[in-house]
C-alpha cells in the first residue's frame, strides 16, 4: 500500500506571496522530519492574476510529482477569489477550507457552496496590526498549524526564525512570530 500523502492547495493572486507561504509551510514540516513538496503552478499570468500553489507532506519519501487533485486542505489567501469554481474543485467532504477573510463562515459558504469544514481568519488585518504590512503568510501558517496539526507551532516558529532571521531585524522576526501565534489562536472553524 503506497503512503498516504497530506495534500494542500493554495489559491491567491500572483504577487501575494502564496509561493513563499507554501515554501514556508513545507520547510516547517521539514523541520519536523517529514518529507515535503512545494510547487507553484506556472502560467503566463502577471501580478494580480489568480494562481495556485501546492504542498505534499508525508512520513515517507514522496514519489508523486503531479499536481494536487483532491486536496485535504484548501487555503485561500484572497477572499475576492472565492467565487472562482477552481477553489472547491476536487475537494472531498472531509477536506478543510481555510480562508483569509474578515467575513464569516456564511459568506464563505455562500460564495463557494462548500459543505465541509470552513475556517476563517482575518490574516491580513492581523499582519497589518503586528508588523504593518498586509502580508498574511505567517498568520496563515499559524492557522494551518492549528487546523491541521500537520505542522506544529514550534516548527513554524523555528522556521520563521531561520528564514527571517537572516534578512530582517529581531523586531520584525518577533512581530512575525506574534502574527503566527495569533493565527494559531484566532482561527475560527465551523464544527
Amino acid at each position, binding site marked *: 500500500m503506497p503512503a498516504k500523502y497530506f495534500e494542500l492547495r493554495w489559491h491567491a*493572486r500572483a504577487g501575494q506571496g502564496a509561493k513563499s507561504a507554501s515554501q514556508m509551510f513545507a520547510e516547517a514540516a521539514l523541520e519536523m522530519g517529514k518529507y515535503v513538496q512545494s510547487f507553484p503552478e506556472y502560467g503566463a499570468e502577471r501580478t*494580480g*492574476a*489568480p494562481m495556485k500553489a501546492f504542498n505534499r507532506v508525508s512520513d515517507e519519501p514522496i514519489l508523486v510529482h503531479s499536481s494536487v487533485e483532491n486536496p485535504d486542505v484548501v487555503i485561500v489567501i*484572497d*477572499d*475576492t*477569489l472565492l467565487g*472562482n469554481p477552481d477553489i472547491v474543485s476536487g475537494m472531498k467532504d472531509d477536506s478543510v477550507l481555510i480562508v483569509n477573510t*474578515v*467575513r464569516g463562515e456564511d*459568506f464563505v459558504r455562500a460564495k463557494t457552496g462548500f459543505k465541509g469544514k470552513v475556517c476563517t481568519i482575518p490574516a491580513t488585518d492581523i499582519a497589518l496590526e503586528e508588523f504593518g504590512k498586509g502580508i498574511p503568510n505567517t498568520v496563515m501558517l499559524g492557522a494551518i498549524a492549528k487546523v491541521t496539526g500537520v505542522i506544529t507551532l514550534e516548527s513554524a516558529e523555528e522556521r520563521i526564525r531561520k528564514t527571517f532571521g537572516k534578512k530582517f531585524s529581531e523586531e520584525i522576526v518577533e512581530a512575525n512570530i506574534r502574527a503566527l501565534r495569533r493565527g494559531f489562536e484566532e482561527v475560527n472553524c465551523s464544527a
Partner: protein
Amino acid sequence: MPELKGWKEVPIGGIIDKPATAKEYKTGTWRVIRPVHQIENCIHCMMCWLYCPDQAIVIEIVDGKPKMKGYNYDYCKGCGLCANVCPKTNDKLPVDKRAIIMKPETEFQE
C-alpha cells in the same frame, strides 16, 4: 476556462483563427481596488481613456464629443492609473470633488 477540445477539433499549428478571443478572459477578477467614476466632477478630458492599459473605460459620443461613461469592470484590473492621470482627481481635492475614487473591491462583494 472554456471546455478543452481534442486534437482533431482545433486549427493546426496552434493558430488562433479568430481575432480578439482574449475578450472572453475577464481580467476584472484580478482587481482588488475598484475605480469609481463620479460623473458630476468629470470634465471628459479622455486622459483616463487614453491611459487605461486594459481599455476598461467606457466612452460614448454625445453631440460629436467623447464622454466618459464609467468602467467596464469585466476588464479593469484596478491599477489606479486612471485616477492618477485624472486632472480632477488628486489627494488635495476632497473625495466628493474627485472625478475618480479608488475603493477596496471588498466593499462591492455582497
